[in-house]
């Protein structure tokens, strides 16, 4: 379980990759990962390709992130969701708040 940060070459994209289980145990790590956004950051990507499990607190954490940064960035993307993860996000109507693909 970990959150890793990856900033693109031009500094415009921040990618947060969640590995393993996305749950309340990473509440502080996750917050820290987006707390110091650079001025030039335009897109934030939450990469869930390696996320096998998530619980409802993960959804809460995503919403909190959105509250904190949505005024500073162009869009928040949730990317590389496995089909089950995608349907959970759809049921939660996250597609209205995030760019999900």
């Amino acid at each position, binding site marked *: 379980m970990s959150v890793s940060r*990856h*900033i*693109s*070459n*031009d500094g415009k*994209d921040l*990618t947060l*990759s969640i590995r393993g*289980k996305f*749950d*309340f145990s990473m*509440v*502080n790590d996750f*917050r820290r990962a987006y707390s110091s956004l650079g001025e030039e950051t335009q*897109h934030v*990507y939450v*990469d869930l*390709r*390696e996320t*096998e*499990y*998530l*619980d*409802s*607190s993960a*959804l*809460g*954490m995503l*919403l*909190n992130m959105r*509250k*904190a940064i949505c005024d500073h960035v162009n869009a928040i993307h949730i*990317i*590389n*969701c*496995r*089909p*089950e*993860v995608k*349907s*959970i996000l759809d*049921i*939660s*109507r996250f597609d209205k*708040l995030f760019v999900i*693909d």
Partner: protein
Amino acid sequence: MLRSSRQLVIDIYYDDSVFAQHVCDALKQLDIARRIRCIPVAEWSAQAQLVRPSLLVVETVESFLLQRLRCPEQLLIVPNELSSKLLMQWEGDSLAWQQCSGTRVIQRIKSVADAFNNSRQLQAVRESLLWHNQRVDREHALVEHIFKNALSRNYLEYPHIRTLLTPAAKFNGDLCLVAPGSTGSLYVLMADFTGHGLAPATGALPLSQAFFAMVDNSVSVAEMVKEFNYRLNQLLPNEMFCACFIMELSANGQRVTYWNGGMPPAIVLGADGEIKQRLKAQHMALGVLDSDAFEAHTTTIQTHSDDRIAMYTDGVIEMLSQNREFLGLEALERYLMRYSGLDEFDLLVKKLAQFRGAQPLQDDLSLAILQCCPTGLGPQEEQDELEVLPFSFTSHLEAEDLKHLDVVATILGVLGRLPPIHHHRTTIYLLLAEVFNNALEHGLLGLDSRIKADPEGFAYYYQLRAERLAQLQSGSITIRVEYARAHHRLRFNVRNSGAAWEWPEFDETADGYSSYGRGIDLLRQLATDIEWHDGGREISFTYYAIPRSKH
């Protein structure tokens, strides 16, 4: 000179004439060889593979002598008065015998012996070369077989990519790999090892193996290049490295993430063939830097379904024309703009071939054009084929267990491996975690969800949870799971020994997205037959692990 000739062993074929007898005697007296074997000419054959320098001593040239010789290094000795007309038809050397000085005879015989030995040596070298060539061919065939197997998964038939892969020698030092990721994305790798031929092609093996293994897990481009660099840095000699462009196209075709180390710029072409972007190298090639110094930063660009990305190795821009002029990047870009459609790829290849004419390739040459449309690749999931027996189990967890075990993940670690449940493990985790966390947090730890209403409270809530759990002295949670084969029905029952508790009404905030209370909503939508007993101390729900439709 005489000494070396004394090492000779020669054969003399002679007929039964007085002349032959005379010559044989004279030769023996000349002391020209260590040993002379005299053999009747009847045993001589034009097609014999002779093992020693040979002389033929005959009084007349019979017709059987005038055949094509298998071994032309033979000396025919005849009487001086014999017509030279017949001798013209003898393929080998000849000497008209005179009663003259022995020195001339010795020299002639020695030169025949030298020619014979040279020819024998040449023959031996030729045979060893032939054998060596066959061995190399056999080994190349084996290596080709290994390469073929290593690249058998290469998805070059992907409908939205066209490729031109032309090695300068038998083995390709360029590598173009295409594979679908498990999330429905598409990975393309174009690599160019230093040099061309077998040695650089060898580097393609570990690289392609690592690529296909990582693609299966949809590993990110950044993670991939880190691993590739680590492997190649360890494997390759100092003077060898690998320029590499690798990209991942998202399943919807709208996003490309790439890393370019030492490759010429990949070119993004728009709908009308205009150049939208050049994806230039920002990094050193693979296999040069240690892991500490290596940079795996990728770049993500937005793409449209009309966009195409052209990737190529430097062999294309450094291709020489008939007049030995380089093609160059500008000319390549003009060609790409003119023939940018996938359906025009054959034309593009033809134009490049026309440019090159009969000029031989100096380097391996690879070109690929990818259309950035939705990949149409379904997420890769194994099929449910194995059956599972009906089962049930109960897990009773005391306070100490609850402190130290990751309960829901552990249960799913077991359940999630069962074939019918495997594809539902994420959803089941979500549901069971919801019910279990409610039992623990509200039933045993007495936490109130409303604390989570703002971001600060959210973190505080989980801090409280950790503190109270650490202090928990008594209380227990019992989880029961039943599986019935009919409809793959899973029934969960979670009971806690704590306080009665009631689910709060889902308190939707104005925008409908509260940071808590969402789990219950999900439970209602994803599970059925939700039952609630004993003041919230016991909750049951059912989940049907219906197999996904086959792709």
